[in-house]
């Protein structure tokens, strides 16, 4: 069991290291986010599994799982929020970025994002939520 736990811990820490490295050296904000969101979440997830295994007792296992779930649940939302905000505020892309299909769909003043597929009789479906 110790070996398994150690493995989880080591791999998890390794991913976190990668996340940190990615945050440091990826060329633009979006790409950094690819690194931090995925590697970071996975790293923490692995470590929390390791913790669950290490302590073994049910209540701790459940808590470790809870951490895993929370991280997997919240990390993409955070990434989405930051990415969206970064994009909307015009954080520059890496120069090797190939295309941007969103650029002309955004109406920052009306706070609307168009799909380019609107029908003329569309009601504003945003009101429904």
């Amino acid at each position, binding site marked *: 069991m110790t070996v398994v736990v150690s493995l989880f811990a080591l791999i998890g820490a390794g991913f976190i290291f990668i996340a940190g490295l990615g945050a440091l050296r990826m060329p633009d904000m979006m790409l950094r986010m690819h690194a931090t969101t995925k590697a970071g979440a996975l790293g923490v997830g692995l470590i929390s599994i390791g913790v669950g295994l290490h302590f073994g007792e049910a209540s701790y296992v459940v808590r470790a799982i809870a951490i895993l779930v929370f991280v997997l649940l919240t990390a993409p*939302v955070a990434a989405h929020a930051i990415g969206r905000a970064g994009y909307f505020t015009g954080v520059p892309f890496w120069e090797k970025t190939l295309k941007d299909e969103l650029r002309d769909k955004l109406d920052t003043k009306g706070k609307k994002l168009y799909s380019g597929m609107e029908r003329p009789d569309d009601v504003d479906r945003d009101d429904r939520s």
Partner: protein
Amino acid sequence: MTLLVWNILLAFAWIALTGNFTGSGLIAGFFFGYFVLLLISRASGKRPTYLRKVPQTINFMLFYIWEIIQSNLRVAYEVLTPTHNMRPGVIGLQLSCGSDAAITMLANLITMTPGTLSLDVSSDRRMLFIHAMHIDDEDQLRADLKHLERRVMDLLDETGEQDA
């Protein structure tokens, strides 16, 4: 009905948190879950049914974990190699699913899977904008994403192109 399911789920969450796997723990969990639901039922919204989804859910989770691991290996590769071979870009993905839950789930899954990151959904919910690390092969990427969408829709009982 859905509320009841929610309540039961919360009760289980409770005993999980407390580590008190007894009848009293369940009742207490049910009790507190009930109050929580009472409170948030003000923010009304549609709830999908869950019960029969359990096996499907487990299946899906395994798939998803695999995706995450894949995604990470790819990122790790990009991060660790000294030169960047990425060809990033933002693409718009036309959506088939229409419910909030499905869209959200899809968006979050996309974020956690290889080289893609959900930016936002268009105001009319027909388009999901995604930032991808590699759009060299855009068609393959779109196909993968549509596949993921299908799995989500199955899980959530959606038939596609409806919801109006």
